[in-house]
């Protein structure tokens, strides 16, 4: 059985207006019906462009944002039905690594204090001596010297701070770690170190990961299963190798096509799919398939009317597209004039921008 089980999870943020008498004008459907299963000891990678709802999904699973509907179960135990007070002792089992290690560490807490605090809050037995031993051991595990204990977050480099963030997530010996863009705020050279560290820790403590990223290379390297999110829902999910080898959903094809190939000969001749238009607003998502406004393979009527469910093709490859088989077999060809130029903001995007991996690391 899977360790983490998410069913039809929805997070809708109400849009309110008025100061005294607030009225609700619809809602932003940040996460709209997500199912996912993460098996114990594996890594589940979740990719998607900025604003597709992947961070909100992570926070909803962590119960840092209240979901609107659906269920989240960890090891068979339902998490959404519990009150915050009842949930608190259970938080030991699922921990989070944040994107920006500087912002997620209290600037007035030194490393010793911030690592000891969760142990005290959960009344972990052993007292100060045992706690001190545990956090020293943890620091060594994440590759920091014991002298780091009395230092403050601002005295470390970005990579070291993320190591502290990881140590903090590990201090309660959780089963599941949700890592929301764990390396996107770091320099490329440091990213690899942190990813390697995460892999080592997984083996050592038999951890289960849910890793969220916009960087396809990062996710590919660490994940067993990868899911692609678009506008609040998962549109394709498959074992990592398979997804990268044969992307099936038109959006995934476009995503993969946006990754430059480090060989100029191939890069020049390569047939890339250029998506047009912007990500539609999650406050007013398109009817039918949410991707149909930008899809080069879009077919008349059905795509605009019927929302495709995630269905299994072969070998655990799941996709939410009515015409996945036809596209794969080449029976449907992409139209050159791709999406209808109906939206006001139609602009041709540079393919790299799709993945916003070139943008400033702070963006979320």
């Amino acid at each position: 059985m899977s360790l983490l089980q998410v069913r039809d999870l929805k997070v809708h943020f109400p849009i309110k207006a008025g100061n005294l008498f607030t009225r609700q004008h619809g809602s932003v459907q940040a996460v709209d019906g997500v199912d996912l299963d993460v098996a114990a000891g594996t890594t589940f990678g979740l990719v998607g462009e900025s604003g597709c709802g992947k961070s909100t999904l992570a926070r909803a699973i962590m119960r840092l944002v209240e979901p609107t509907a659906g269920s989240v179960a960890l090891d068979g135990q339902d998490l959404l039905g519990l009150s915050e007070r009842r949930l608190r002792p259970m938080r030991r089992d699922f921990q989070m690594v944040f994107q920006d290690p500087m912002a997620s560490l209290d600037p007035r807490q030194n490393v010793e204090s911030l690592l000891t605090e969760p142990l005290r809050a959960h009344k972990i037995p052993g007292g100060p001596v045992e706690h001190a031993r545990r956090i020293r051991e943890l620091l060594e595990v994440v590759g920091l010297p014991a002298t780091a204990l009395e230092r403050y977050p601002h005295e470390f480099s970005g990579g070291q701070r993320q190591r502290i963030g990881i140590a903090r997530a590990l201090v309660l010996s959780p089963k599941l770690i949700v890592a929301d863009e764990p390396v996107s705020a770091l320099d490329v050279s440091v990213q690899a170190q942190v990813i390697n560290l995460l892999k080592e820790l997984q083996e050592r403590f038999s951890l289960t990961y849910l890793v969220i990223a916009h960087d396809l290379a990062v996710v590919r390297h660490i994940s067993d299963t990868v899911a692609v999110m678009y506008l609040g829902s998962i549109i394709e999910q498959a074992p990592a190798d398979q997804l990268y080898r044969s992307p099936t959903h038109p959006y995934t094809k476009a995503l993969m096509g946006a990754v430059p190939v480090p060989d100029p000969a191939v890069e020049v001749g390569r047939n890339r799919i250029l998506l047009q238009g912007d990500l539609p607003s999650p406050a007013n998502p398109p009817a039918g398939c949410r991707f149909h406004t930008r899809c080069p393979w879009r077919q008349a009527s059905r795509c605009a009317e019927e929302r495709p469910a995630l269905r299994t093709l072969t070998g655990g490859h799941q996709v939410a597209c009515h015409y996945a088989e036809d596209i794969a077999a080449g029976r449907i060809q992409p139209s050159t004039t791709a999406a209808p130029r109906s939206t006001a903001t139609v602009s041709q995007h540079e393919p790299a921008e799709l993945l916003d991996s070139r943008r400033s690391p702070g963006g979320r």
Partner: protein
Amino acid sequence: MSVEEQVGAARPGDEVVKEARPTRGLRGEAMRRLLRNPMAIVGFVLILVFVAVAVFAPWIAPYSPKDNSWLSEVRPGVYPGPSAEHWLGIDPLGRDVFSRLVYGARQSLLIGVVSLAIGATVGVSIGLLAGAFGGWVDALVMRLVDIMLSVPGLLFAIAIAAMLGQSLTSVMIAIAVVNIPIFARLLRGEMLGQRAADYVLAARSLGISRAGIVFRHVLPNSFTPVIVQGTLTLALAIVEAAGLAFLGLSGSDPSAPEWGRMLTDAQVALTSAPQLALYPGLAIVLAALGFTLVGESLREALDPKLRR
């Protein structure tokens, strides 16, 4: 360079923690920046002189501030100026101006500190309540604060002092009440901002209790502007105390040495001896300036937006 090229080559612990520098908290860094600022040094010196004069007034002042033995030397239009015996001369009621000025510092400091203590304590408590609970508690508390803030400060203080009757206590309370909404609003706003910070989310995900988050994380990180405001408020309290005294709203004893009252007394002789108004005026300005300079440089030293 892609991530994948790097993977495998790098090992954990590749970065080395810098060992040379002794560890230092954020407060330590701020203190270092503060002491490098000449504005702060001038402010500190002014405050130091002010506090020293207030504390050691009986030893510094040559005469009692209420002693009017020199009344015979004063005639309308003729006020003895500085002399070896009376450094700053004699006021229209025959008292030693220097002694009154020295004792006046004591009065100003007392009013400033006590009113700040009351105002800040009450204001911080209200702000904490609103900031910690949010929701309707916040809405209710903040509307009350808005009502208090809608009345101009000095006018508000005058109204309260007049209502409570002439006494030192009523002056202190009046000034304190004016400061309550300022502190409440400041702390509440800062706490609301901090509550959305990632480290608060992190603390929640670690299972830290709500009280633990508020008192160990949100409050300490929201307190900096309160300290700055406290320093600036001391300056304002001194000016307000002088204002109330000038209007005759301070103590019931008209001979008490107060800078504001000294200004009132000097009015009679403004044409013939303007220096009598100048001395207390200068004292008020310098004392207030000291606290303002320190407050402003504290703000600069502590403000995270100016950091790095």
